């Protein structure tokens, strides 16, 4: 049960940050860069939005990986310590 709860929390984190990233990429970024459209042209604006979206995507993947791997290594280390503490089990 504890494992399911922990992995569900990771799922929830991934889901919420995915939705937040989509909002930032599709709503906030075009709004923030709309000024650039008049000054630099629509193509450059699209390139900037795509570049920033890629960076957000990579940050999201890195956060996801770090969270999952830290959770995994923490549990595994704790189990090893427990095994050392009680060698008869």
């Amino acid at each position, binding site marked *: 049960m*504890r*494992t399911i709860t922990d*992995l569900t929390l990771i799922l929830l984190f991934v*889901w919420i940050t995915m939705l937040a990233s*989509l909002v930032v990429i599709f709503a906030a970024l075009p709004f923030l860069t709309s000024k650039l459209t008049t000054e630099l042209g629509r193509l450059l604006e699209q390139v900037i939005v795509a570049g920033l979206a890629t960076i957000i995507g990579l940050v999201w993947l890195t956060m996801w990986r770090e969270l999952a791997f830290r959770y995994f290594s923490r*549990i*595994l280390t704790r189990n090893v310590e427990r095994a050392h503490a009680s060698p008869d089990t």
Partner: protein
Amino acid sequence: MAGEADLLETYLPAASALIVGFALTFLLIPPISKIMRKHGIVGTDVHKLDRPLIPEMCGLALVIGVTASTLVVGFFYRDSILKLLAFVSATLIVALVGALDRLTTIGPRLKPVLTAFGAIPILLLSVYSPRPSLPFIGVTRLTIIYPILILVAIAVTANSANMLDVFNGSLTGTCSVATIAIVVCTFLVGRVEIAALAAALLGGLAAFHIYNRYPAKVFLSDVGSLYTGAAIGSLAILGHVEVAAVTAMMPQIMNAFYGLAKVGRLYERKEISARPIKILPDGRLAASRDPSAPVTLSRMILARSPLKEYEITRHMVALSSVSAILAIITQLLIVWW
């Protein structure tokens, strides 16, 4: 009375496809497994102490069952024939890649490329809309990038489903739950013909689960696992439920992503010397402590304590159920926005 007729018109095709998909797959598995065993197409069930030999490539029953039940869907929705044709050809291309991979060796780098070819019928028949709907945003326009995303979507869903086909019933269980979410989501957006297609897949997966659950009597192999993933990817595109489908497939995507992030490249299970799971003398499975072993979803589930094989599958199905609920919430957010 008119309301009842509407209800019947909406749900009867899906119910029929579900029943036909289930019945055909269920009836086809025994003869196909006999043929596979007779021709020596068997694989070792590596997570059992006695390592029994199980008939492989029985996913062919699923492929035939679901493809045949698409005809039933076609009978009800004759004006959606192009979409049905795209679904059938896309999934059959990927199933063929799976069969080739079993009979020859395609390799971990070429397989995702070949599975991406499954997107070609969808692109050629132009049965997609490059305007995906997103929660809190509404309809977006991705005219240039969307066709590229279709190629990626088919390859990712097919291969991530394939990578979760590690335990008895793990793929059929988790993908059945994901498909239930897609049936609900496609009904929510009013794409009843795609909901019927998803119901056909659900019927096939449910029938296969009876034979593939612990202790497995048959294996899907790549032909069935790649087919299932590609079918879910195609349904997401044709049904216009892309974000919900990604959410429903999170356990599969998570599993594939963790493995890739740890190993640093595309890989086949057989080429990894440091196995993520080990069998204990009492038959339970435990997470390997080898730091070079890939971090998979099953290894994460086992990190806390060793479990029986069927218990791991139950954990995976529970996680898929959470994802399915989140997928339906995502689609409701899109519909209500």
